[in-house]
């Protein structure tokens, strides 16, 4: 077979992404149809910037979902004679092409980039969500009560923020630290916050109807409790509560460290934002009204203050997922945590940069992928901010 030209490469790649195009088209069509009934989300479709951002984010989300249909080769599949080949080179057995060339271990750059999206799309939003739960659970009381609690929590948050992120990663994400089990203990503490948050959230709302409350709390306790123990515990490490047979969610220790350290870095910033918003909102009349009605403290914080702080928080969530993507890339770039064979974008940039001046594609492809995802999230956040300010 002949090598593909530039135009043919682009066309073939666009073709490979067919499930993604269908997915994006479906979502956009549905959203346009029901635009007026979708609230803030619907209004995104009034702004071209927000739509561009959303399209980029959806592109990578669908790529992560349909990785197996899009990728042409396995992430670790090595094809002989394809080492460092330029884009569009046909494989020796004539069954296909390496669309974006081969890397220094003769693996397909295109397929690895596609597979890399899955790691980012799973870790970044989830770790950001956990960071938000931590930040909200601590930030609301700090802002609402003030006093010593606030002084202490703010000092602690500023301490973590005073660490340059990379130094913190080099201290936290090392094999030595993994041996001591510290990341797992940290996970033990950090993952407790979502459960705490959800229970307090439900409890504050349904305190007056114990029937509903008790069942809801039981459901949260059993479901989240199991997920929690299953996430943290890992047979053969410092914390092994569950036997392997019952451990439904098995997170490799190195992924857990990455996850925990990213949460750890993000939570203090979220804490500061939530605290600032709470300080502002607690002086409003509806908070005073709730106080007069005799509502509980947590009800006021979670059902009066938090919903009114949602605008800036949603915008920050988008930005922060982007920032987390950058952090994950940084970890991969320094070869921390994730294994060198992992197809995530940071690690591939790291392995590709050694031959960058001679064979640029293995590093450029994941770099552009990462940039486009972060750009999409930033544009989406910008659009959300503009639309939410129109209220």
């Amino acid at each position, binding site marked *: 077979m002949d090598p593909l030209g530039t135009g043919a490469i682009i066309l073939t790649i666009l073709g490979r992404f067919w499930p993604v195009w269908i997915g994006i088209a479906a979502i956009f069509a549905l959203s346009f149809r029901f635009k007026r009934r979708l609230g803030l989300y619907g209004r995104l479709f009034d702004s071209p910037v927000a739509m561009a951002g959303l399209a980029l984010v959806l592109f990578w989300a669908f790529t992560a979902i349909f990785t197996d249909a899009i990728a042409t080769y396995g992430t670790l599949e090595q094809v002989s004679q394809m080492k460092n080949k330029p884009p569009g080179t046909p494989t020796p057995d004539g069954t296909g092409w390496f669309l974006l060339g081969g890397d220094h271990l003769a693996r397909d750059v295109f397929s690895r980039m596609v597979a890399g999206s899955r790691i980012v799309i799973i870790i970044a939003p989830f770790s950001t969500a956990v960071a938000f739960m931590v930040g909200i659970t601590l930030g609301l009381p700090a802002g609402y009560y003030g006093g010593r609690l606030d002084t202490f929590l703010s000092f602690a948050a500023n301490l973590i923020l005073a660490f340059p992120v990379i130094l913190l990663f*080099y201290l936290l994400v090392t094999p030595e630290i993994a041996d001591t089990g510290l990341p797992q203990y940290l996970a033990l503490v950090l993952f407790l916050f979502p459960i705490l948050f959800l229970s307090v959230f439900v409890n504050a709302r349904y305190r007056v109807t114990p029937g509903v409350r008790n069942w809801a709390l039981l459901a949260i306790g059993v479901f989240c409790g199991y997920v929690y123990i299953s996430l943290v515990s890992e047979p053969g490490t410092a914390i092994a509560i569950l036997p392997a047979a019952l451990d439904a969610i098995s997170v490799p220790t190195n992924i857990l460290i990455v996850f925990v350290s990213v949460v750890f870095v993000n939570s203090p910033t979220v804490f500061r934002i939530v605290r600032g918003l709470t300080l502002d909102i607690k002086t409003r009349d509806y908070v005073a009204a709730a106080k007069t009605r005799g509502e509980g403290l947590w009800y006021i914080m979670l059902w009066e203050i938090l919903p009114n702080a949602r605008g800036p928080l949603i915008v920050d969530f988008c930005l922060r997922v982007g920032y987390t993507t950058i952090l994950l890339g940084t970890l991969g770039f320094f070869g921390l945590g994730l294994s060198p064979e992992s197809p995530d974008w940071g690690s591939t940039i790291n392995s590709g940069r050694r031959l960058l001046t001679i064979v640029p594609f293995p590093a450029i492809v994941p770099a552009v992928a990462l940039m486009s995802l972060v750009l999409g999230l930033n544009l989406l956040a910008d659009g959300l901010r503009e639309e939410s300010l129109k209220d």
Partner: protein
Amino acid sequence: MLLFLLRRVLIVLLSAFCLTLIVFLLTNLSPNLEKLAKSEAGTRITDREVAVWLEQHGHARPLLVRYASWLGLAPAWAPPGRHLPGQCAAAAEDDADAPRYCGILQGNWGTSTVFRGDVATILGVRLALTGNLMLWVMLVMVPSALLVGVLAGMREGSVTDRTLSSFSIVTSATPEYVSGVILIAVFASSMTGLKWFSGTAGSVADKGPSFDTMVLPVTTIALYGMGYVARMTRASMAEVMTQQYIRTARLKGVSFRNVVLKHALRNALIAPFTVIMLQFPWLLNGVVIVETLFNYKGFGWTLVEAAGANDIDLMLGCSVVAVVVVLVTQLLSDLGYVLLNPRIRVH
């Protein structure tokens, strides 16, 4: 004002104390010390020999004691039966002359196991190189970011604004390891054949900086920081331009040029000032990435080398420098904000 200053300084000192304690704790975990023993005394030694080595070198003492003696608040480690403290032994000829306290407060930062030298000297050399890089970054980044921000915020919603805003969103969405890779591929690789600049800055440490080697590292760091500062400046400028006094000036017939330069600019630059100061810690991250990518043998490169080789003393030294830089900039930006903005006077 004085009380405010005192309070801030006290908080900074307390933070520095806590942070160094955390770093000390994390770098002196037992697996790290075990690795150190094995790299210093031989990889094939038994667990018992490791324990003995740690005992002899004072690593078996309680953690807080070790921290205090590293800091210089407690007597330095001296092997049993000798008066000579281990760390400063080389400096003193006689046992009796050796100072009892020998920590970083006394100016002894320990010895690097990777570069085989005094940590303070190594850090001095490396920091000078990084300082040079930072200087150029600041010289490029600050004026261009302010210019972009002011031009964009001057007429909100205009074509100039849209173009420049898009540009700053793109640069702030591009982390250093992405823009660096792209810049090298475009300007220094055989792909485009341009090869205008050098893709590595490894020679700067020996031969000194040259235009050829510095362009790409400086651009890479400056681009990422620039987007953020430019967006802040734009927001600040756009806000100032809607103020009453700007309208009054325009109605009086002052030219647009003069309104921007004489009435708006000064007020619009207060907010970006703090942001620029707070960019230093961010630049520190950028510096580590860029120095690794371009093999520029400065502070960030040293940090990565130290961490990779379990060089405890050097790692601690790097952390102290990083933490001090961050805390001092926080303090300065607080002060600068108060001094620049007459509306925020602390009583």
